[in-house]
């Protein structure tokens, strides 16, 4: 009897620990909504999603920052995805066995570099370099995109590598046996077979880029206007929250939480998308 009730107790305790993630997520969503309500009530959605940020005159538009987030993310993916994908192909198809360890170790090291350290690197090296080449201020979308590309490479490489490794080797063997070259095999057989996994990898990389704060904050601006070029200062949602949360009150503070809420929705949408993609992948029939 005692052993049965202890089993029950243990089971319930473990369930409680598992439910912490669910409760935590609910709390995060709840408090983001609660704290941003004043902004929606007093300023209104039309004001919040306008393009002018000027708290002194009661303008709390976040459009500039939303555009900043989307453009830097797109830039980071545009630069990072080809690199990551080639790296994943290299690690799974091309690399000689001996150098494989070195390259995959290097990717792991890059994944471990703290974002503030990458930001510091961007601030001390990348921004001055862009400044000297283009003659502009140096910080902006271009610098942020390059830093984000470095940040998404480990994520995209690791996940698309898994996807490429999951393609049964009989596919490649069949293709090679038919006389296809290695590139034909990669391009016509392996990449199409792994496409859902690669898509999931890119979406997860996108999530990382959307949420990145410190590294972008050190190379993006600061300015609360639309950028006029790739090298003029602006802001993203995350960097705006970071910069202003400390010294804002009232509706301004609440509108920063509204930006947090938008970020939260973006992140959740990407999660739903990844789950869709991996479900499609499971139905493809050969994974597991």
């Amino acid at each position, binding site marked *: 009897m005692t052993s049965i009730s202890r089993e029950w107790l243990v089971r319930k305790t473990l369930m409680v620990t598992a439910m912490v*993630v669910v409760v935590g997520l609910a709390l995060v969503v709840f408090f983001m909504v609660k704290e941003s309500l004043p902004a929606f009530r007093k300023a209104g959605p039309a004001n919040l999603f306008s393009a002018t940020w000027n708290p002194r005159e009661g303008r709390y538009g976040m459009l500039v920052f939303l555009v900043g987030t989307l453009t830097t993310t797109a830039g980071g993916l545009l630069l990072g995805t080809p690199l990551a994908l080639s790296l994943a192909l290299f690690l799974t198809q091309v690399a000689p066995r001996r150098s494989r360890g070195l390259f995959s170790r290097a990717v792991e090291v890059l994944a471990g570099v703290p974002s503030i350290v990458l930001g510091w690197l961007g601030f001390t090296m990348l921004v001055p370099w862009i400044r000297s080449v283009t003659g502009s201020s140096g910080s902006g979308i271009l610098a942020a995109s390059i830093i984000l590309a470095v940040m998404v490479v480990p994520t995209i490489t690791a996940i698309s590598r898994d996807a490429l490794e999951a393609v049964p080797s009989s596919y490649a063997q069949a293709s090679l046996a038919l006389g296809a070259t290695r590139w034909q095999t990669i391009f016509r057989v392996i990449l199409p077979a792994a496409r859902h996994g690669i898509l999931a990898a890119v979406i997860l990389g996108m999530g990382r880029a959307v949420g990145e704060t410190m590294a972008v904050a050190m190379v993006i601006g600061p300015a609360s206007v639309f950028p006029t070029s790739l090298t003029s200062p602006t802001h993203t949602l995350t960097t705006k929250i970071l910069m202003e949360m400390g010294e804002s009150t009232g509706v301004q503070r609440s509108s920063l939480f509204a930006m947090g809420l938008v970020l939260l929705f973006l992140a959740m949408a990407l999660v739903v998308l990844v789950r869709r993609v991996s479900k499609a992948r499971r139905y493809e029939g050969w994974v597991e």
Partner: protein
Amino acid sequence: MATREKVGVSTEVRPKLREETPSPKERGKRRSGQFLADRAATVVIWAFALLALALVALVLGVILWNGLSTALTPSFVFGKPQAMREGGGIWPMVVSSFYLAALTLLLVIPLGVGAAIYMSEFAGEGRVARLVRFGADSLSAVPSVVFGIFGMVVFVIYLGLGYSLLAGALTLTLLNLPTVMRSAEEAVKSVPKSYREAALAMGCTRWETVKKVVLPVAMPGITTGAILSAGRIVGESAAVIYTVGLFVRKVPWSPFQPAAPMAANIWHMYTEGALVPDWFRVASGEAAFLLIVVLVLNLLARLAASVVRRKTGYRT
């Protein structure tokens, strides 16, 4: 044939039937074209891979080149920070970083391992399991700055903890829980089924099986995951800035005191640097020291698994 249709790629692979066979000369041309394309692709893939390697070397090289000599000076690492004078150290920040990591691990490991055991040993595929899976996936996608302002509202203000190590540890617990949980779950799942069956056949209950068989065998994997998350905690700044603090003069001793982990302090040097004359030297040294700490932790994570494995004597 049915399985072939399922594959979904076979249609693209199937060679097109030609109406007339090309002449041998034509065939040779095509073939050499394909070989050229193959060569070119190989060269491009190699070039990109080498570029990535160079990028990693550049990142490590520049950070260490700028800061290593500072970071290896004892008076810098163990010295007191200065506000208006040059020559300040970072000892309180070093302590803060490790204190915060220890406190967070103390909270996140029991929760993460418990959740992992529940998910792999008890939950099955029911509604609870699906809910937890969704919660973990979503939580791991939430940007760290959102965790930061959440922690500020809930732990710093509502719970009245103020800027403190504890408020930061609670925030980082939530941030790291999904990853700790995932790595622990992988470790637990890698324990062969036959081990569990043997224990159950000997009359062990489910919990006894977990405690005496599954956990010891999974311990190397769990240790690796824990040390890796320590590296992530030490490097985290966006979630820490509004929960723990940016700058302290004295070494924090209580979890209820404000502190300044290195990662947050670099941000402080970047924004308020004018207060410290040699802020650039301090931030560079701190960045290099932080990078070394994280790299050492990642190395340790790899070593720890084999040490623990040798100690427990289990093999998986």
